[in-house]
Structure formats: C-alpha cells, structure tokens
C-alpha cells in the first residue's frame, strides 16, 4: 500500500455497477461507471437526483458494495481503507452525537478502532501525529463552542464540526455527500471558503457530491457530470481556475464560463435518450 504514490490514482473505479430492487422495480443506480481520481485533487460529482452520485460516494466509503466491477482507494479495497482510517466522511446531515460536547464529538473517532492508528504508525510513510483538535476547532471559529452540545449550535456550525471531525482523522480521501445542501446561501459560501482553507493544509483527495453548479465550479479541480436512468458519467470537466478561489473570483467571466459549461452538459445529459435497460 502506498498512499502517497502520486503516479497511481487515489481512487480507481472500474466498471462499477449497482442495481437496486428487481423485476418491475429494478433500478440501475450505476451502469458500468469508470472513473480515476488523481491524488490530491478536489473533485465534485454533480447531476440530477437519481443519477447515482450518492451511490458512487457510498461505494467509495464502503457503505455499499458493487454488484459488478471494482472500487479501489490507493490500491486497497474500500473496506481496508476504512479500517486504516484513510477515509473521512461528511454526511448530508451533521450526524453529531447530541450528548457529547463539540470537542468530544470530534475526538471520539480517534478513540474507536485504535488498531488503525497502530497500523498507520507501522507504515512509515503514513505515520503522522494526531492533530490538535482544539486548535483545529479554533481555526474554524468554533473556539467558544468547544464545550457546547451540538443542539445548541446553528446548522452551519454543526456542519463545521462534522467537517473538523472528518479532517481531524487526517484522511487520505475526504468524502462529502451534499454537506451544505441544508444551509442558507450565505452560510454555504462561508463554509465553502473555510473548507478550501482547511483543504489547503492537507494532502487529501476530495470527492464532493453536490447539486449546485456554482458550488461545484468554485470548489473543484474537476467536475464529474452524471445523468440518470441508468446512472452514468456523461462528462468530466477540468476547472482551470487559480487558487485560492476568493468570493471575487465567482463574479469573473472565467468562472461564469465554467458554470455555463457544466450547466450545458447537465442539460444535454437530461435530454439525452435513456440507455436501453442495462443487461
């Protein structure tokens, strides 16, 4: 296993197929999807609902398994990637434990599955000290909230805690499933900026599922456009915009160009004929 071998892709998805139900209710969530994600990149997956973008993320996170094809994370199966705590997951809802204060919520993942830490230390290249979680919380403006319970925080603050919890694991792969979709526009843009700041200090590869074109273009090096019935990838667009991506950038012509490009691909994917039922 070589987590920082930059010649190999961080995530390799090869002919992945996922089918739910059977007979009349049979639904092909993913139809033979191939995707290589290079290490250290920020990749967004966008598409209308039912296109399988969340399924794709759950396959990488080992929350589901493929019916055909394979998924590899740094050459490992998703299962062993999880076991080594190489994956940081941010679900759509913050999913914090209401009886633990913020600090305990973000440190609990370190206290479960301690085998992973030992395994990491054994592999020299993967050995990294555990970060100072209190400092990390202060960095995202949660210094005062550290000893509060999650229900006492706003939705935006809770989602920030969830991001710190995932990044605190110092994962090689950060998986985010529409993490900002429940937030208001202003909070969402703030968190996007904060996420980019945090990500700058890491080497993590990010897979970010979203249904917002602006969000995808602002955050990503690469936007993967998907279409439904059956779920498939229709295009991969490289976003060649300078970083750091400030709020001003979002009003530039270059930014609008990429937004239009992604929208156009989404439109054509929507109007493209459905593939014949997957065999």
């Amino acid at each position: 296993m070589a987590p920082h071998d930059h010649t190999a892709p961080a995530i390799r998805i090869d002919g992945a197929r996922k089918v739910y139900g059977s007979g009349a209710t049979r639904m092909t969530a993913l139809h033979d999807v191939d995707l290589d994600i290079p290490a250290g990149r920020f990749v967004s997956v966008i598409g209308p609902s039912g296109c399988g973008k969340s399924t794709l993320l759950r396959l990488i996170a080992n929350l589901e398994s493929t019916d055909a094809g394979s998924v590899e994370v740094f050459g490992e199966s998703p299962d062993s990637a999880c076991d080594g705590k190489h994956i940081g997951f941010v679900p759509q809802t913050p999913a914090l434990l209401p009886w633990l204060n913020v600090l305990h919520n973000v440190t609990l993942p370190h206290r479960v599955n301690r085998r992973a830490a030992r395994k990491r230390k054994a592999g020299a290249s993967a050995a990294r000290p555990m970060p100072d979680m209190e400092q990390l919380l202060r960095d995202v403006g949660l210094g005062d909230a550290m000893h509060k319970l999650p229900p006492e925080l706003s939705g935006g603050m809770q989602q920030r805690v969830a991001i710190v919890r995932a990044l605190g694991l110092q994962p090689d792969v950060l998986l985010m499933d529409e993490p900002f979709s429940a937030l208001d526009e202003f909070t969402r843009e703030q968190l996007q900026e904060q996420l980019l700041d945090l990500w700058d200090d890491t080497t993590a590869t990010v897979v970010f599922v979203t249904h917002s074109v602006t969000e995808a273009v602002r955050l990503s090096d690469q936007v993967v456009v998907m279409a439904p019935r059956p779920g498939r990838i229709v295009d991969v667009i490289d976003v060649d915009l300078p970083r750091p991506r400030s709020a001003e950038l979002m009003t530039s012509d270059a930014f609008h160009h990429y937004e239009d490009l992604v929208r156009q691909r989404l439109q054509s994917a929507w109007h493209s004929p459905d593939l014949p039922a997957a065999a």
Partner: protein
Amino acid sequence: MTAIDTPTPRTDQTDAPEVTDAPEPAATAADAPAATVATGTDPATGAPAEQAASEASATATEAAARRMPKFLRPSRWAPITVMVLVLGVLWQIGAEQMPYLLPPLQNIWSSLSGNPLFYIENAWITLQEALIGLAIAFVCSSVLAIGISEIPLVRRAVMPVAVVLNVTPLVAIAPALVVAFGFGPEPKLIVTALICFFPILINVAVGLRSVPTPVLQFYRTVNASRPEMLWHVRIPSSLPYLFAALKIVFPLSIVGAVVAEMFAPGAAEGLGTTISLASSNNQLQVIYASIFILALMGSALLAIVTAVERRVLHWHDTHRHEPE
C-alpha cells in the same frame, strides 16, 4: 396534618403528572431561604454602617421577590389545592351517605396514626419485593435487549413474543406461581420481575436501534467495532427510551408486588396481604390507609426516576427547552 390529603389514593392515576413536578420546586424551596440568610448575615460582618445593612436587606428582599419560585405563585398551587379540597369534601359526603362504600377520612387517619409501625413494616416489605423484582427485570431485560439489537436472528425470534407478552396481563400469573412456589417471597419477585421485564425489554431494544443512519454511516467509515458502537453510540441513544420505560415500570413494580401478595397471603406480609386480610374483616379504613401508602410510594418512586432522568438526559430535546 389535615385530612384533606388523604383522598390522594383515589386519584393516584390522575395525580401522576403533578407528582413529576415535585423534585424541582423542592430543590428551589431549599435554595431560596438559604440564599436570603446568606445575604442577610454578610453585611453584618462586613459593613458596620446601618444604612448599608438596610440597603443590603432591601436588595435581598427584592432579589427574593424576583426569584420567587414558580410553585409559590398562586397560579401554580391554587388549582391543585382546590381540587384536593373538593375531592376531600366529596369523599366525606360519600362516606356519610354510604358507610359501606367509603370510610370517613378521620377513621383512615386514626388507623394510620394509631399504629404507624405496622404500616411502615408492611410497606417496607412490599417496597423491597417491588425493587428487587424490578432490579432482576432490569438486568435480564437489558442483557436480552442488547442481544436482540445485535443479533438479527435473536431479534426476529424474540421481538414478536415480547410484544405479545407485553400486552398480556401478566399479574394474572400470580395464582399459578403461588401453586408452584408456595407462600414465600419467590412468587412475588417473579410476578414483579415479569411485569417489569417486557416494557424495559421493548423500549431498550428499540432505543438501541434508534441511532440515525448518517451517524451509523460515519462510524462505519472509521470501522468502529460493534462493542465500540454499542458503548459510545447505541447505549447513550437508548437512554431516553430506557427512562420512558422506567417511568412506567417503577410504579408498575408496586402493582406486581401487591397483587402477588394478595394471592399468597398467610405466611408472608406486606401491604397486599394487609389489604386482603382487612377486606375479610370489613376494615375499610385499613384498606384505604394501605392504598394511600401505596400511592405515596408509587409517586415517590416516579419522582425519583424523573429527577434522575433530568440529570442524565439534560442533553435530550425533552429536557433542553422545558416550557415555563
């Protein structure tokens, strides 16, 4: 002590919510006088000037008025006081009209005050049976609930049976147990444990499975082991469900003990035995005195559970934004 308190046994069911409020006012009542005394004595030692002292006492009374506990406000205590008075009067009228239906309150009181030791001893025996039976039920049902939650096969086998037994009036098993175990404490403990067992089992089993999917998903991505999930996530999640069960089961344990005693009088003692003996001797006042004590015990247990719940579940929605 006035006789108006005694009708409580008649209203033990409807009284329950009121009783749950008891611990909080009790605590504030203990607080308030202590605080006033402290502010009153402080200036005496620190400030020689009279004016300062009177000023201090003025602010103290102001502060006391501002923080007058809610239960001292008439809107809080008046309704229940009037209710108790009305019930007391109705009781006395009923007792006068139909002496074989209700004993006069003063007879109940004289029976209680005439031989308090007799009632205390019997109440203690009943309480012991109730609590030991409940403890047995708690341990067994919690262990089985974890088994149900962790092993789907066990869940599919046990849950349907548990749901059926939970709605079966298990106190009816008391006579059968007397046949099997005689007149010792065993049938009482078994009946109490049985009727407490299923409410705890079902609630805890549901509570252990009440963890939201995203939480489970997150901890699955760090490969938390099943014992770790159980300890850090599932058991804390089940606590609100456990306390809901305990609030049902603590008063229920007394029901179990009393019913079992009624079916197995003779050698054993307890308030259930007292009631069934008094009934064959036409001693209505003894029956109602016993019922009154049983109601008090049930209310006290409920108050204790509620107080503990407030401390343990301070993080839970139901306790974070209490109205009033």
